[in-house]
């Protein structure tokens, strides 16, 4: 069997968080009743004309700059012609040969270290509407059309075919999402469709410079499904070649339930989009001063923030990567640090217990019931000995449950750590008296026996005894 190399490029669509649509005054808000966020322009009524929303250009420029692209001095819109009932004009206003931004990159972490993935272009376009079916598109007797999403601004980010594994593709998409979220121009929610990803996949014999025939994979609605779909598709292509068959250039859809990609070939002919400059819109000549203004207003991006966490906070690179993966998480972390200086301890909690509870509750950090200053408060209670680490976990879960301050929970539940020597001494004496054999084992060198004794003391004190003091006192008394 020949060895194959996988070649993957991604096309990512991101909905911009503007108030209004790209070419009209209609709202972009989610969740309106069907066909209520429309006007003559986005409905494509006869006679209407588009006028470009300036914010869209600004936002797209932000992304272009964040992805290290060159911003075009001269850019324009074109029409992409194809018929589909969710497309009111039966053409989409998009950008063809003169996109707003080109030639950028982003860096991903791979097992072999940092890898740079090229960004071919970033361009602006309008979204289509939504089709509602009874059952699936192939079984429904008719379809219903809602044009609320029609004309919502999108940017399309096209990567170079630089990724070699499904894992790299996933890492690219995660990093891209992080960067875009940092720029604040989109929510980037894959499940709501504000971030959508199509993949171009091909394989070729290792050592070959020529690209193999590619397929385009659609309908991957999460990072996980991207990775799964790509793994499947690569395998499918290898099998097809091994069996002596060829790869057909086609669009395939990912079936999440079945875990396979399916050909989307229909009776429709091969596409010929007949792009041409939209005569209803005039060119953009981008002012370099404006670009610099936007550049200056960019927030600190994930790579930069990660470097800072390593350099200034002494965090391990891994922790820094995880915490800076979303702006919200990194902001949370920094707010926590404002009230508590030990970055490593804070990152352990954020990456550990906090992430665990958020995942279990299917919440994101913005919905976290524990505010960053409350987490800082908890960590301080631990550091100053008010509570033990073990109790802290209990308090933490209670905080997550109720949103109450840690001090309040500790007080209400009487969880203050016992650090009084007399009280601990009494408890230790009681335990030793009750377990002479174990104490003897420890004395003769069985280190494990100490753990049992500590546990007994904690049990007697209902977990509140200061574990360090218990340890120390047990050793002293046994020797």
């Amino acid at each position: 069997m020949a060895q194959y190399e996988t070649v993957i490029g991604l096309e990512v669509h991101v909905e911009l968080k503007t108030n209004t649509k790209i070419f009209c005054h209609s709202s972009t808000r989610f969740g309106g009743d069907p066909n209520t966020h429309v006007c003559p322009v986005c409905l494509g009524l006869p006679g209407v004309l588009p006028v470009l929303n300036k914010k869209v250009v600004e936002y797209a420029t932000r992304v272009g700059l964040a992805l290290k692209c060159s911003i075009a001095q001269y850019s324009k819109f074109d029409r992409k012609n194809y018929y589909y009932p969710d497309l009111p004009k039966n053409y989409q206003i998009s950008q063809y040969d003169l996109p707003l931004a080109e030639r950028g990159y982003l860096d991903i972490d791979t097992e072999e270290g940092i890898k740079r993935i090229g960004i071919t272009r970033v361009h602006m376009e309008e979204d289509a509407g939504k089709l509602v079916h009874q059952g699936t598109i192939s079984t429904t007797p008719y379809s219903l059309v809602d044009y609320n999403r029609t004309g919502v601004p999108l940017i399309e980010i096209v990567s170079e075919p630089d990724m070699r594994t499904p894992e790299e593709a996933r890492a690219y998409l995660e990093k891209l999402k992080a960067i875009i979220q940092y720029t604040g121009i989109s929510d980037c929610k894959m499940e709501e469709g504000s971030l959508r990803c199509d993949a171009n996949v091909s394989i070729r014999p290792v050592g070959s410079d020529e690209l193999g025939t590619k397929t385009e994979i659609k309908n991957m609605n999460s990072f996980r499904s991207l990775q799964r779909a790509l793994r499947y598709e690569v395998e499918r292509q290898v099998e097809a070649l091994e069996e002596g068959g060829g790869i057909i250039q086609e669009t395939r859809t990912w079936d999440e339930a079945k875990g396979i990609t399916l050909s989307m070939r229909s009776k429709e002919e091969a596409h010929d989009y007949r792009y041409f400059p939209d005569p209803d819109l005039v060119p953009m000549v981008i002012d370099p001063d404006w670009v610099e203004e936007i550049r200056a207003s960019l927030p600190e991006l994930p790579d930069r923030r990660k470097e800072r966490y390593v350099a200034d906070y002494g965090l391990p690179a891994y922790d820094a990567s995880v915490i800076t993966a979303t702006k919200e998480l990194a902001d949370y972390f920094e707010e926590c640090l404002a009230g508590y200086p030990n970055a490593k301890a804070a990152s352990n909690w954020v990456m550990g217990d906090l992430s665990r509870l958020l995942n279990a509750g299917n919440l994101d950090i913005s919905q976290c019931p524990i505010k960053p200053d409350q987490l800082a408060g908890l960590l301080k209670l631990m550091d100053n000995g008010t509570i033990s680490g073990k109790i802290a976990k209990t308090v933490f879960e209670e905080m997550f449950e109720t949103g109450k301050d840690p001090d309040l929970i500790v007080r209400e539940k009487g969880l203050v750590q016992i650090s009084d020597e007399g009280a601990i001494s009494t408890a230790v004496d009681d335990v030793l008296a009750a377990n002479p054999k174990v104490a003897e084992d420890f004395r003769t060198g069985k280190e494990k026996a100490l753990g049992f004794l500590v546990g007994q003391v904690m049990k007697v004190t209902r977990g509140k005894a200061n574990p360090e003091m218990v340890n120390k006192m047990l050793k002293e008394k046994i020797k």
Partner: protein
Amino acid sequence: MDLVYMTAHELHDKLTSKQISAEEVCREYLDRIEKVEDRLKAYMTVTGDLALNQARSVDKRIASGESIPPLAGIPIAVKDNMCTEGIRTTCSSKILYNFVPPYNATVVEKILAGGMVLMGKTNMDEFAMGSSTENSGFYTTSNPWDTERVPGGSSGGSAVAVAAGETVFSLGSDTGGSIRQPASLCGVVGIKPTYGAVSRYGLVAFASSLDQIGCFSRDVTDCAVLLNLITGHDPLDSTSAPGQKTDYTGFLNRPIKGLRVGVPVEYMGEGIDPGVRAVINDALKVLASQGAVIEEASLPHSKYAIPVYYLIATAEASSNLARYDGVRYGYRAEDPGDVVDMFMRTRSRGFGTEVKRRIMLGTYALSTGYYDAYYLKALKVRTLIKQDFDRAFDKYDVLISPTSPGTAFRKGEKVDDPLQMYLSDITTISVNLAGIPGISVPAGFSGGLPVGMQIMGRPFDEGTLIGVAHAFERDTDHHARFPEL
């Protein structure tokens, strides 16, 4: 004098001096429509009740002592490709036979704000594709000077409605001559302003980079007054020209002594009817007698204008007309099996032959493998055509030609040969390709049929066109002749 052949400025004086009411004017015109419409079929829709209501509200303003704007109470008809809220707008196409827009075109908003009285919507070549109004999906409009003949097109209904006294004014659209040519064939004044001078918002698009709204009127003074109302920047149209409004009436009654007039040889030679050429030569003498300096000029790339125009216009149209698919409005084919079947049958039955021909041509010109050879090439030659005009206007203040190579032709005469029909647009289409303004004014008659003189000017120099046209009109009375009906 007959009320239905009065100009707007005459009517305005009668309204403000209370010699007549706006309602009386309106009824007079509705009666006229009633009387001649069977023979002419200028209108798609007559909005009589609405018109009377609008007229009465103007009368109330006059009665209350309000000083009304110059066009308040004056009847106007609108070509049926401009959206009118609540009033059927068909583009004379079966595919939009029942379309009632929920919004007004900007230009319609402007005429309503000016207190004008909307008489109705006028017949046209389907989607403005044609030069005779024979391509209307419903019926052909007749030329009031000879009802066996076409009125020209595509704004034939608008031209006829003015020429036959069925309205004082009308709005038309001009993509390759669709205002000027019917104005010429019907003996009225018709202006296509500079591209961008009048908002296209609400004008159902044929070819977006060429389409421009303009107007028909009985004389040049009226033309200037209506231009004042309909021009100006519109934030809803990205291609609308920014800048201050011009008062075009300020260009009336100006001397033209020393005016430099170029007459492009390409528009006066082969293919131009000798009777038409004679009328234009006489007209030039009138201008010369007032001190204008007439010289032969040249627009060397003229012959390329026809293919350039038909490639660009059809390419844009193929995309603009894609939205008529039976989903959101208009006609839908019966019992479609699936969406593709619905699209194909809806469009095949909804569109007429000429529209389909142009969609086919435009689709072909944009398709893979042909884009560079046809569409891109056409855009480049468009540059050369525009440069011809730039150079000519370095030397001349205006260019003058026949508006159309011939007078009104017989119905059915050219329908079977689209190329011949296209060739008759030779004198008008370059003006659209260059985006400059052009006006057609009644210049005389040939064989009893009107002949129009086209005056072309620099971008946004409609004022000079008005001035020259008015100077000509002062010394002639062609505009004051009316067809016997």
